[in-house]
């Protein structure tokens, strides 16, 4: 039934999720706090294991990436296939600003975030100006991502080429011990969640929903579609860049694979599609689930891609809208029936 409806309205994959945000501000604050509290307990459970904490930190970085991607793709329908590259601008940028140029760490992170944000905004501006559709935006940003990867490999003297380089700045600070680093990354996730949630509640959110549902109608109703798309890209890319920078500094090194297309973008898309494209908490669910799955399968080496791929196929065949919107739909129907 819901699937038929989704097909009829053409909203089945992009932004079919969550037609309206939950109404009360208090409920939203409660949900964010609950997510924070649940994830905040993880170090009590895994805190003794350095390996598992590193995995958890990467999981949180992915949660942030997915939120940023969700803001750009889920909210305004721009398929940015350069999540890894934008995060890489943040990561390499922060490392180079801090180590090579000697800026303080906080300044480096902010500069790198700015660079990433402007790059994302520029890409979005180009796509909007040339009125590229979803697929073409995807291809242009994919080309950008591949060019970035090659630039990193080619500019070996600055980026350390294939091996990347170790970051000296912040080496003796709290950033390199696992538990504080975990909470830093968790703080980023929560801040991004709140930002995305507040954006949706503001007039910007109305504009997002309008242009996502029907671009032409939104434009006719006076929504400046181009401007809101660029805003979303600026904000989303800033999230990606800041996460990339913070992750690089907590790891103490950057390398091309940290921000590779196959390593970041593909995973981010799968996580978001699992949680639910356009849904507020979908990114968290997707990131946690797939980080766990990945960790369970880690001993299988390359073979682990097989169940991973099979899961992706099964997922899109049976719950193409993602877990949170689908379960939300069930709950909604169950409620209306029991009334």
């Amino acid at each position, binding site marked *: 039934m819901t699937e038929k409806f989704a*097909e009829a309205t*053409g909203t*089945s*994959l*992009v932004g079919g999720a969550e037609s309206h945000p939950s109404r009360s501000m208090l409920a939203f604050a409660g949900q964010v706090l609950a997510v924070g509290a649940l994830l905040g307990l993880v170090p009590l459970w895994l805190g003794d294991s350095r390996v598992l904490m590193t995995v958890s930190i990467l999981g949180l970085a992915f949660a942030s990436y997915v939120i940023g991607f969700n803001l750009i793709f889920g909210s305004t329908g721009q398929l940015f296939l350069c999540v890894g590259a934008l995060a890489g601008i943040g990561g390499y940028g922060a490392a180079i600003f801090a180590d090579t140029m000697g800026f303080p760490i906080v300044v480096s992170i902010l500069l790198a975030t700015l660079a990433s944000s402007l790059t994302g905004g520029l890409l979005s501006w*180009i796509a909007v100006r*040339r*009125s*590229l*559709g*979803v*697929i*073409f935006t995807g*291809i*242009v940003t*994919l*080309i*950008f991502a*591949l*060019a970035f990867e*090659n*630039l990193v*490999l*080619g500019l070996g003297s600055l980026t350390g080429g294939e091996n990347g380089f170790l970051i000296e700045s912040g080496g003796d600070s709290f950033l390199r011990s696992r538990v504080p680093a975990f909470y830093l990354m968790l703080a980023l996730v929560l801040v991004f969640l709140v930002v995305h949630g507040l954006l949706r509640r503001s007039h910007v959110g109305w504009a997002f929903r309008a242009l996502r549902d029907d671009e032409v109608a939104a434009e006719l109703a006076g929504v400046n579609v181009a401007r809101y798309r660029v805003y979303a890209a600026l904000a989303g890319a800033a999230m990606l860049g800041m996460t990339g920078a913070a992750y690089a500094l907590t790891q103490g090194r950057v390398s091309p694979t940290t921000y590779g297309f*196959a390593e970041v973008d*593909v995973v981010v*898309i799968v996580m978001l*599609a699992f949680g639910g494209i356009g849904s507020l908490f979908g990114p968290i669910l997707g990131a946690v689930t797939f980080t766990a799955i990945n960790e369970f399968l880690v001993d*299988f*080496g*390359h*073979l*682990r*891609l*097989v169940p*991973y*791929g*099979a*899961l*992706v*196929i099964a997922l*899109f*065949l049976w719950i*193409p809208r993602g877990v949170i919107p689908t379960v939300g739909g069930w709950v909604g129907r169950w409620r209306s029936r029991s009334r």
Partner: protein
Amino acid sequence: MTAIILDGIVLGLQFGLLAAGLTLVYGLGGVLNLAYGQIAVISAMAVLFAMDAGVPTLASVGIGLAAGGLLGLIFDQTILRPIYRRQGEARVLLSLLLTLGVAFVVDGFLNWRYPTAGLSLRISGDPIEILGVPMRRGSIVGSAIILVVFALLFVFFRGTSLGRAVRSVIEDEEGARLVGIDPSLMLRIILIFSGVIAAIVAMTQSMIRPVTVTAGFSITVFALIVTVVGGLGSVTGALLAGIILGVINSLATSYIGTFLSLIILLTAAAITILIRPSGLLGVRE
């Protein structure tokens, strides 16, 4: 200079045929097959294993081509079924994600089971001079095969009623249905074509350099870029874009350096898309 341009054309023909296989499926069915490179790799592996088992080379190549076509048919019958039920952008996105899943499964299995396998078909003999430039035999045989395949494709699309039926579906699916053409049958035929084309590219490429198990993803990406530059759904556009990008790549490699050449290639592709979003020969929708 001539040598560099000839090299570029050899590479460009590979690009062009690669893109032709992808662009037909997109033009006809609105499906972007991200497991396209994996079809090429599996076909190459089929040839490799057949040759290892003692099958003569030519028969092995036949097995490889059959494997490619069979994979196309299997795709059409299984994974693409649910995709056909959707329309427009939702269809493209779902096809992208589902075939990405297939690509994972194939890549994961092949990398795990045969991590170092690679196919190279050696064409023995001295280099042949063309326009005063000695060319390797592998390059010449490969390019000749690709040109023949393109010629066959053009004959098929212009000269046969089946080919015209396929083109009519690309132009107007509803209209084609009204005059009694079955679009899903045409799609099945084109998917088999696409699989065979992927296999042919794998073989001709292996005459120049080995096709390894890990090549799938980069094959798909290059096919995608050339397809978009050439214009979605246009075989001629694919050929033209392939040759242009091949020559650009070859010129950039020899005059500027390997690492920047790919960036120049990508920039050229991006600029083409931005200037002409419908591609060189694509029809503006």
